[in-house]
């Protein structure tokens, strides 16, 4: 049976979402997309010069990709809502990644404002993917608010620290019916695989690919890791034992009577 990820009524084959920030040269982005077999790609609307004469970031993204404009730079729900509407009006489609950050020190998302923005935008017909600090009650509120997926962070944005919030993300995966997309913090393909093995629906990777020595090769590496992790999850990984299992059981003699 084919394995699809369905978000907002769209069936996705690829579970590696990409970001477009931090690339030294934007012209590499098409090759990164190709190497990642990417379908969903996020773009900071703050950096798109709509109506400008300059070639903008959207010109580097194939029309076949699903654009996920993000509200980076928004400090509260009102700003996020305005950015999302602007994105839709400028022809970026109706998907939006809500990113509300009122803390420039750690760049941690403001869950409360995120829920508010999600509720408003979902009602307006957006496919809303909120970026959040993993918290079960907030995730439930996001489901109520009409989110299409939930995107908990693995570690603070740009840190490449890996899946530090693993236990909290695991609870979201177990309890939330929506797809859980691990966003931010994933620094290595092995960490992406780890998230997928746990049952994450997808991962979003930007910094680790954009700042790699070779972004195209790194995109391919992530693509393979995400596929491997997904396949492992679907095949059911063996139970992890606390102790080595002796090949000659100590209680074997009980059966011989």
């Amino acid at each position: 049976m084919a394995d699809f990820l369905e978000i907002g009524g769209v069936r996705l084959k690829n579970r590696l979402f990409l970001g477009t920030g931090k690339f030294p040269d934007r012209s590499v982005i098409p090759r990164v997309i190709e190497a990642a077999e990417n379908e969903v790609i996020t773009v900071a609307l703050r950096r798109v010069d709509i109506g400008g004469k300059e070639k903008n970031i959207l010109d580097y993204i194939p029309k076949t990709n699903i654009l996920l404009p993000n509200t980076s730079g928004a400090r509260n729900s009102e700003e996020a809502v305005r950015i999302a509407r602007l994105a839709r009006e400028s022809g970026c489609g109706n998907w939006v990644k809500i990113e509300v950050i009122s803390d420039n020190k750690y760049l941690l998302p403001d869950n409360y404002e995120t829920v508010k923005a999600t509720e408003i935008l979902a009602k307006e017909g957006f496919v809303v993917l909120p970026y959040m600090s993993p918290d079960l009650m907030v995730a439930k509120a996001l489901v109520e608010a009409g989110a299409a997926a939930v995107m908990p962070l693995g570690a603070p944005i740009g840190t490449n620290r890996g899946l530090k919030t693993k236990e909290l993300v695991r609870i979201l995966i177990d309890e939330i019916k929506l797809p859980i997309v691990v966003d931010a913090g994933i620094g290595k393909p092995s960490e992406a695989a780890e998230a997928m093995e746990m049952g994450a629906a997808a991962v979003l990777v930007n910094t680790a690919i954009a700042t790699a020595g070779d972004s195209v090769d790194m995109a391919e590496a992530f693509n393979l890791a995400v596929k491997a992790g997904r396949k492992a999850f679907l095949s059911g990984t063996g139970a992890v034992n606390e102790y080595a299992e002796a090949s000659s059981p100590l209680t074997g003699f009980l059966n011989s009577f």
Partner: protein
Amino acid sequence: MSFYQQYSKYKNLPFDEMWAKVTASRVERVLQKTSLNEDDLLALLSPAAGEYLEEMAQKSHRLTVQHFGKVIQLYTPMYLANYCENECLYCGFNLKNRIRRNKLTLEEVEAEAQAIAETGLRHLLILTGEARNSTPVSYIRDCVEVLRRYFTAISIEIYPLTQEEYGELIAAGADGLTIYQETYNEELYDQLHLRGPKKDYRFRLEAPERAGEAKMRAINVGPLLGLDDWRRDAFFAGLHAAYLQERFLEAEVSVSLPRMRPHAGGYQPSHLVNDRELVQVMTALRLFMPRLGITMSTRENANLRDNLIRLGVTKMSAGVSTSVGGHSQEEAGEGQFEISDQRSVEEMREALRWLGYQPILKDWQNI
């Protein structure tokens, strides 16, 4: 607690003694840390840390790429007027200097805006001297209203305002404040500013706080390196930036590190800051605040700027004129200071690409 109170707690510390006591092993320990405090910043500004420039530079480069990517945001200044009521010993706009004084009309502002917008830039910094009569807040507000049709982000570098006045300019469309304390040394500040409203040290020092209270999105502070001992001014600039970031978590906080340049007044700086020292200041601040914006102006020459890009810079000016009307008028007056890097926006973009960096013309949209 205002930053003035924090400054007052620190100002009489025996800095020279403290710096002399910093050992090589202390510097090495700081270089291993991921989260630095004020003592660590002090250590990185010490003479001992001057021997670790390469290590500091490597770490600064790593942190900058991690948090910002190989990306430089470009902007340009637009001088609206050069009337000034201040007598500051080191400045070309000093009231006593016999330069042609000028103020752009709104039509001229629009012509300047068109000329700059043609280059593709979407971030603008507008400047005036300090003259509330010739360039009142209402004039600056009118200019901002014209400019917001051409630019997505507008910063102001003008005289310090009250919180209400900052609120007025924010409502008109300004979203960034740049204000330099020049020197954090209160006594020296008094000696350098002979006459005029700028003599009020505290009103200027607390201006960024008032702007923050008014919800200014971006706040850029800094010392004019060369006026006082650079280690001290760099230390206080770091404290100031950290104070602002703590108090206004939503704000994007940056520092500029301008060094004194030759200008019409002929005042010569008493503490020349050489390139090694400038690198020490920049990298120390990056290690202290990994997400801090660092602005590098065209006071520095092209070659040095190109080399500093990898050490922590996140914003640079390009296509600069420091004269009123310098972008669109054939006979613009004297500039505030001499420019060392004369490159146009297009040349700057080309240079960045060649260095493996992405030039960013738009990084924010005031909505």
